[in-house]
């Protein structure tokens, strides 16, 4: 399993936890195109932050080093890494592959 697949698997579990907290009629599909931010997203800001914090925690535990996804740099990228599930997986993969154990 390469790191992108592993991260997708971790993200799916975190996403399921988010769904567990949402009402039956508001369940979200874990699809690459599922929007996470913007007008088409049904996540509110605190849900988005919770999702990111939980994803950071799970990735850090899994890869054995601190992984930060929501920093100033990520926020200011021209193409938001948080646009949808696919862009976030791609961004997390890049962060994991370039991160060092500090």
């Amino acid at each position, binding site marked *: 399993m390469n790191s992108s697949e592993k991260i997708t698997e971790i993200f799916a579990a975190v996403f399921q*936890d988010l769904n*567990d*907290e949402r009402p039956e009629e508001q369940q979200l599909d874990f699809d690459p195109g599922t929007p996470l931010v913007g007008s088409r997203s049904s996540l*509110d*800001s*605190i*849900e*988005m*932050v*919770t999702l*990111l*914090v*939980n994803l950071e*925690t799970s990735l850090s535990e899994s890869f054995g080093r601190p992984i930060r996804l*929501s*920093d*100033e740099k*990520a*926020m200011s990228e021209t193409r938001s890494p948080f646009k949808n599930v696919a862009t976030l997986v791609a961004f997390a993969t890049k962060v994991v592959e370039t991160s060092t154990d500090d």
Partner: protein
Amino acid sequence: MPTRFLQERFRQVSDNDAIVWQGQSFSYAWLLDAIGQWDTRLSEQAVHAGTATTLVADFSPHGVAALLALIQRGAIIVPMSESLRNKRHTYEQLARCEVAIEITRDESISIHKLHSTAATEHPLYAKLKSVSHPGLVLFSSGSTGEPKAAVHDFTRLLDKFRIAGRPLRTLAFLLFDHIGGLNTILHTLGSGGCVVVPSNRSAEAVLSAIQDFAVQLLPTSPTFLKLLLMRSAWQEYDLRSLQMITYGTEPMSPHILAVLNEKLPHVQFKQTYGLSEVGILRSKSKDSSSLWMKLGGDGVETRVVDNVLQIKSHSTMLGYLNAASPFSDDGWFITGDAVQVDGEYFKVLGRGGEIINVGGEKVYPAEVEAVIEMMPQVDTATVYGEDNAIMGMIVCARVKLVVGHEPSAKELTQAVRRHCRHHLTAKQIPIRVTIDPHLSHDERFKKQRRPQS
């Protein structure tokens, strides 16, 4: 002489117990005599009016006698408890102490000169000297940064004890360098009551002191009361003498207060309010189970600006030795405590500095802690803020579990969040929940609301 009224009162009740220390009683006659001995000793050691003097002690008979003799001489007193040992040098430098007095647990006494490095006299000290009034320097235990040294005119602090209260047998729980501790002692002795000092501040020592010495009043903190509940040990003690528990220094959980009222139905619970900078204000709780209280009276005025309590009072400090003035332009002390107001009642929500600002919504740790602590598997919760690039801050919690519960961190997080959803707004719900079996309080029995390093 600022303590004349106290000494007159001591003479009126000279045969009564003034202090119980290590199981032994010391009468007011003993205390009067000891104050006289201390006066001679201080004179020999060149402690005069205006001499900044460290007093490292507990409320032992000699500790109390030394304190009263120092007040009588007009010295500037810097009280320190044993727990401040590692900060002592810093505090002595800050307070420009010239003499240090140490009284150990076995009542051995040492007095020595210190080398104050201050080139000039601090204006606040000069102000005290100019009117020949004793001073008091208290360090506020700020959660961050350098402690602030609040300078009081001791004469003003003593004024409220001129009218004697009920003579109660009171447990000295709060420490020697805490405004609440000093208030307890002065109020008790000023009323002809008896100060009972426990062998230490553990729940067991406090409970056995209440039982063995018929303590009627226990001034303490919410954190300690929780510790008391957690140990069902309190049921093994005879607490029938106890009439009142006062609690202050931090917000109380409504859930814990309800449990305390249920477990100790014969005890009246009263919230107190005080700060190192303003002294202890007279307060009146709506009732034993209420967190709403009236504040003020005795020339104390209150007002609320931007939800923060401000106070104007005769006993407010003169200022800080090492920090900018916390007074408003029109002379009110800005407490930093966020409050709710209902008519003439206040409810303290928490320290402004501890507020967690989540995307513009103010979250008070105490409120979230109270909700988490309703969960049967939770022993204690401490809520703190963590910086977050998106929301500015997020709410996090450290939780100590009741023995016998061993969920994984993930299971606990889910359970806490599920529970909180019924009681809190989305932004108040902790995002990160960690299990901390060592969750505790500082030596002043207050929660430490900080992320773990």
